[in-house]
């Protein structure tokens, strides 16, 4: 298991990197953390002719809070976030999702943006950013910067809206807002495996207890993170009794795959169950947040 040959570039500036992508297009692959790309190369399932190693780009590992968001630079490792209490506190959903991402040893190297760009439909971080309604910053030398809403970024299995001359330079995760509660639930075969089904949930409560927003996303049930249409449940006071119905609604239009890890109906049942758990926890944490406001 050795990679096929490739030309190797290690740019020292983003402009250099973008110029390489513009030049080589499809032939080139960006190497960041490498925790998904290098295994695929070792198995020769991926055989890029050109590797653009972005690990030496200056200041690309920045993690900062700005304008109500947590901005994560392209080289920020997953474990960098885990080591930043401020960041975890800012985006509680990320704090809950990160321990499920691979293993500590792979999170030390794997990047947040790389996981988004890789777009595995079972991966945790794409699911989290979709539910939070975050955005991905893409840049190319020809067209400069554009922000892609997370909901538009993921297109299918390992497919994103990214053009082949573009690179993900950062991602923006909306920070915790007043009255919001968050929950992440996952079921996997073993600790650290890709999810069979994962659920991320964010609920916003008005001080009067009315749910102003109910966002719930499912991973592992489609070719990309699936955001359930739950607007019908907004503007209502939600009680524990409503949650089974919401969970059922959340999975109503999914058509999960059948494979080695489970049948479609198993995934649907898991999704319903995890959705209910996530709703319960998100609602509880939103209530706590509201109580905090009230005091």
């Amino acid at each position, binding site marked *: *298991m*050795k*990679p*096929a*040959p*490739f*030309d*190797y*570039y*290690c*740019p*020292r*500036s983003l402009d*250099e990197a973008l110029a390489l992508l513009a030049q080589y297009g499809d032939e080139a692959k960006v*190497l960041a953390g*490498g*925790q998904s790309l*290098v*295994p695929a190369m*070792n*198995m020769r399932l991926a055989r890029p*002719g050109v*590797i653009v*190693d972005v*690990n030496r780009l200056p200041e690309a590992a920045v993690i900062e809070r700005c304008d109500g968001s947590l901005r994560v630079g392209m080289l920020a*490792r997953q*474990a960098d976030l885990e*080591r930043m209490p401020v960041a975890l506190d800012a985006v509680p959903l990320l704090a809950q999702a990160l*321990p499920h991402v*691979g*293993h*500590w*040893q*792979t999170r*030390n*190297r794997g990047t947040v943006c790389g996981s988004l760009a890789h777009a595995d439909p079972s991966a945790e971080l794409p699911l989290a950013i979709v539910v939070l309604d975050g955005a991905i910053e893409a840049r190319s030398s020809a067209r400069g910067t554009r922000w892609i809403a997370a909901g538009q970024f993921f297109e299918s299995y390992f497919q994103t809206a990214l053009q082949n001359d573009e690179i993900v330079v950062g991602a923006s995760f909306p920070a915790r807002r007043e009255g919001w509660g968050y929950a992440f639930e996952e079921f996997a075969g*073993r*600790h*650290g495996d890709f999810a069979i089904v994962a659920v991320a949930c964010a609920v916003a409560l008005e001080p009067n207890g009315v749910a102003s927003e109910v966002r719930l996303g499912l991973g592992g049930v489609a070719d990309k993170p699936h955001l359930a249409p739950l607007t019908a449940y907004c503007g209502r006071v939600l009680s524990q009794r409503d949650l089974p119905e919401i969970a059922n609604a959340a999975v109503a239009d999914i058509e999960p795959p059948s494979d080695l890890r489970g049948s479609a109906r198993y995934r649907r049942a898991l999704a319903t169950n995890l959705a209910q758990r996530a709703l319960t926890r998100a609602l509880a944490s939103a209530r706590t947040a509201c109580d905090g406001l009230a005091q």
Partner: protein
Amino acid sequence: MSYCSKDGRTTISLEVDGKRVKAAVSPRLLLSDFLRGPCAAKGVHVGCEHGVCGACTVRVDGQAVRACLMLAIQTDGSRVETVKVLGIADAMHPLQERFQARHALQCGFCTPGILISAQTYLREHPAPTRRDIEELLSGHLCRCTGYTPIVDAILDAAELERR
């Protein structure tokens, strides 16, 4: 910008287990093969080459990572540490001593990677719970021990270090 063609080699210099190393490498040479070959760091074991088993885990610039998922060329200027930095046979590191005392290794093939992971993890988390260590070890496969003695040994070592 540095560049190396697929047929070419680039000279890298780095520190491996405290020694300066300078070598010409082709771009596709995996760090695991570079360490075992030119660097003769045979304590880096290769078990899967797709990042699952954890046997090749080494420390690169202070972080425990999979050597099979890095290219040697990426480590130019880096400090790489393998199991050799822990201790030697007659002056073992507390982790090594506790592994022996707890019978936390049998064939010993997965052991060097686990030792590097554990040593690095304990620096950040000096007072781990049992559950923490089990989660840390979920990044390593061992087929001999059933893991219980490994968890015990790491918890012992953490306690010894705290004293």
